[in-house]
């Protein structure tokens, strides 16, 4: 019987549950000194002076460095696409452009001394005009980078077809804000570095991409990649934001080189809220057109992306938004155009979904507005426009090739699990009775791109003479459970117990290559590479077994139930994995296979989420009653892990729809820079979820698997958002921007009652 598809408990858990994980800050690094960063308290200012005279004299302070001391290059452009003048330096150089930007690094004997020293550095600023609103940034009235002559960091200028909506009977438009949110992994950023006895830079990093960190350190510090050894211990969550390399990482490495001492840095949460990249941050203008019978004919989205203060990964998020423009619908004409601008705020980056939740939010929200306009049930409108299961492979108007799907099946299952007709009847009853607590039902049909970047992945399998199996992977888990999942894949191919398998990741000496874990890529490319390596090892073992059993290679079979090889028809005479590995070792060869699997291309998971909320029309308070998620990520290898990914994704989606938002005042002061101020969602605000999977295997990879890491967030956010808007739609409310906080909902209801039908909800 196959182990795949079974509910296998995590092998990672006992350690976490009995002694806790080993995160970077837990590492015992005797004699290490501590780095802290002097950070800007101004959103936009010229630095007049940095006076550290008092600090240099403090006992225990080792050094204070500014950008001039470092002499390091600026960060490069993102994939060659972003405005070069807007790349950040390691520490602020001449001008600060957001609150929290690092200005100087202090190295001290202890964390306490370093923190005390921070208070003693005097930075004199000459304030400049602050630009927080991306709409204002786009006017170029005040420039963040005068040399660039513009605030535009990147643009995608596609389409512009004036006739796009000419044949449509009904056209509706919507402007919506996909607000800035904070990724908030529970473990903040942390790094440690020292020089080994043989002169290599040893670096511990809380990252999603250890090889990326290695390469960046080598590049910036002028070392060869093999002079840098990155080890990633346990990582307390990343959600995309730890896929990037940050200036602080490089400075920590530089300090270790410069001082020849063991150096460590762990930021505080308040620093992390300003230093770790933020997510989303788009303003969208969307337009949809079609017939009164509910056939959607044209769609256009214009994106204004907030890059934050520098052109980092967040700048190119619209690229991913564009790829998913028309969502799961068969729309003959669809366009996406975007402009990214810099503002005096924390740079944006990838956050669970990275550009795709924004695409789904836009089209799913306006599908509801369109349904209301033509007085059609939103589920029916979706059914009429979903791409049919016989239409695959399907090429969208923006030239994205969807692999395979059965979108109607996911919709139907979600409606069935939700009891959709009864919910609508209950809603009608409450509306007729004028209940204070109105019911809202929100749908979201989604499709998204996973493994969307071109990187391949490394995987290796080695069987040792003691029968133990060592698996090496280039992916870098931070909660996903790769040790368990990759063990299952190898156990399945080799017929060994998962307890006999060790999975190694995150050490750039042991794992030579790797792209890491992001973009819902790991199983379909990293797992597939390990799976292929396991298949290859079986083939090598058959060669060995043929020799030892003096039989024809073609007659050798692997008995997976027993984990041994024999000649077909004579199971009594066999050779175990351990025996074969010992025989190989005797010849001086390990029983080993490694694979660099080229990416076979992206896959497109899909599904339907339905959310049920209750809105108190007197207070504006939203209560999430139920959330139904039907997701299809192709073949499910580990239902336990897949479900866990969906759960976490849903919570982050609900959080964005209802609660969370990074807020700045007009002077660029962050108002949500602690977990006391930022509305991080808790258990008290959530119900248990109702999750189901449909399985439509993809032909793209050998496992038939698609990514599941981000689907939960992509599917849930618009379902919850639509549910809130639906609860008060009959009161004349057309749209409320996220997060749909009580004050916004209450304002929207009141604005509608006083005749302002275009009410969007107060900000």
């Amino acid at each position, binding site marked *: 019987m196959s182990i795949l598809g079974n509910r296998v*408990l*995590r092998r*990672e*858990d*006992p350690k*976490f*549950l*009995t*002694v*806790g*994980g*080993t*995160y970077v*800050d*837990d590492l015992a690094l005797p004699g290490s000194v501590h780095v802290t960063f002097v950070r800007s308290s101004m959103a936009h200012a010229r630095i007049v002076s940095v006076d550290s005279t008092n600090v240099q004299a403090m006992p225990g302070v080792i050094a204070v460095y500014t950008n001039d001391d470092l002499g390091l290059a600026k960060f490069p452009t993102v994939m060659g696409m972003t405005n070069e003048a807007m790349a950040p330096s390691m520490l602020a150089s001449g001008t600060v452009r957001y609150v929290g930007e690092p200005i100087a690094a202090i190295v001290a004997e202890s964390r*306490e001394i370093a923190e005390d020293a921070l208070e003693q550095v005097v930075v004199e600023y000459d304030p400049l005009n602050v630009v927080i609103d991306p709409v204002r940034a786009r006017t170029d009235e005040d420039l963040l980078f005068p040399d660039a002559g513009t605030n535009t960091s990147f643009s995608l200028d596609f389409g512009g077809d004036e006739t796009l909506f000419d044949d449509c009977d009904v056209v509706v438009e919507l402007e919506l804000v996909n607000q800035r949110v904070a*990724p*908030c*992994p*529970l*473990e*903040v950023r942390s790094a440690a570095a020292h020089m080994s006895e043989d002169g290599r830079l040893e670096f511990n990093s809380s990252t999603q991409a250890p090889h990326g960190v290695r390469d960046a350190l080598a590049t910036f510090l002028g070392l060869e990649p093999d002079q840098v050894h990155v080890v990633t211990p*346990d*990582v*307390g*969550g990343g*959600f995309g934001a730890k896929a990037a390399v940050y200036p602080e990482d490089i400075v920590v490495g530089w300090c270790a080189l410069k001082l020849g001492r063991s150096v460590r840095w762990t930021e*505080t*949460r*308040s620093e992390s809220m300003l230093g770790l990249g933020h997510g989303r941050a788009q303003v969208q203008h969307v337009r949809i057109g079609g017939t009164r019978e509910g056939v959607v004919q044209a769609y256009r989205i214009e994106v204004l992306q907030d890059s934050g203060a520098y052109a980092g990964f967040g700048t190119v998020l619209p690229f991913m938004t564009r790829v998913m423009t028309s969502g799961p619908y068969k729309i003959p004409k669809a366009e996406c155009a975007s402009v990214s601008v810099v503002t005096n705020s924390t740079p944006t980056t990838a956050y669970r979904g990275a550009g795709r939740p924004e695409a789904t939010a836009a089209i799913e929200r306006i599908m509801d507005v369109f349904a209301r306009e033509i007085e059609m049930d939103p589920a029916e409108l979706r059914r009429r426009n979903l791409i049919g299961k016989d239409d695959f492979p399907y090429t969208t108007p923006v030239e994205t090739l969807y692999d395979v799907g059965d979108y109607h099946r996911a919709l139907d299952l979600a409606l069935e699990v939700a009891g959709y007709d009864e919910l609508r009847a209950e809603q009608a009853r409450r509306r007729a009775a004028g209940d204070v607590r109105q019911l809202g039902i929100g749908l979201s049909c989604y499709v998204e791109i996973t493994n969307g970047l071109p990187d391949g992945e490394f995987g290796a399998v080695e069987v040792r003479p003691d029968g133990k199996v060592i698996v090496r992977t280039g992916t870098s888990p*931070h*909660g*996903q*459970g790769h040790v368990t999942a990759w063990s299952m894949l190898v156990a399945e191919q080799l017929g060994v117990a998962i307890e006999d398998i060790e999975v190694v990741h995150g050490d750039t000496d042991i794992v030579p290559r790797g792209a890491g874990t992001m973009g819902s890529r790991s199983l379909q490319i990293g797992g597939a590479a390990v799976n292929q390596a396991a298949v290859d090892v079986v083939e090598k073992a058959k060669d060995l077994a043929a020799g030892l059993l003096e039989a024809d290679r073609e007659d050798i079979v692997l008995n997976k139930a027993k984990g041994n090889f024999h000649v077909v028809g004579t199971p009594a005479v066999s050779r175990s994995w351990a025996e074969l590995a010992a025989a190989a070792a005797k010849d001086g060869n390990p029983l080993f296979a490694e694979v660099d699997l080229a990416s076979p291309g992206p896959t497109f998971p899909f599904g339907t989420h339905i959310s049920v909320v209750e809105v108190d029309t007197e207070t504006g308070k939203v209560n999430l009653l139920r959330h139904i998620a039907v997701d299809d990520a192709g073949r499910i290898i580990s239902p*336990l*892990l897949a*479900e*866990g990914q969906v*759960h*976490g*994704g*849903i*919570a*982050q989606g609900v959080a964005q729809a209802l609660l969370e938002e990074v807020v700045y005042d007009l002077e660029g002061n962050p108002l949500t820079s*602690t*977990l*006391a101020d930022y509305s*991080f969602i*808790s*258990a*008290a605000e*959530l119900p*248990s*979820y109702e999750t189901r999977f449909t399985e439509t295997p993809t032909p793209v990879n050998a496992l038939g698997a698609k990514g599941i890491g981000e689907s*939960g967030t992509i599917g849930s956010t618009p379902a919850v958002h639509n549910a809130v808007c639906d609860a008060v739609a009959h009161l004349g409310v057309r749209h409320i921007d996220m997060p749909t906080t009580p004050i916004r909902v209450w304002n929207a209801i009141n604005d509608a009652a006083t005749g302002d039908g275009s009410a969007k909800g107060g900000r």
Partner: protein
Amino acid sequence: MQIEITVNGTTESHDVEARTLLVYYLRDAVGLKGTNIGCDTTSCGACTVLLNGQSVKSCTVLAAQVAGDEVTTIEGMALEDGRMHPVQQAFQECHGLQCGYCTPGMVMAITSLLAENPEPTEEYIRLGLEGNLCRCTGYHNIVAAALAASGAPEMHQ
């Protein structure tokens, strides 16, 4: 100053600065790294430990305040025979953890909640965990683990 605290049944005595928070006492002086720090505003609960059997956020307690008291951390949770405590066991069985960072605090908070109310409702657990944040699990399986643990025979002895 010299501070004596009983940690997981062992008496610890360390010379620390008066401003030392209990969490730093546990992590740096005693060397137990299982208790994590997730914020600086007493918001996240990652540092939750048991103080004389009741959950507290160890970032909000000075070590000096609890001199002479008994503290239990995740490292002290396993049963005497070495098996995992029912709450720990339920976390694995229900897949109540992913990255593991909030987990020690969650386990301690739930242990305390179940001591107060051995037969809790889902709502009781959810409200009781409001001060313990998790970014990975969406709380679904943490709540399931708490409810599963409440039904374990060891919890009702």
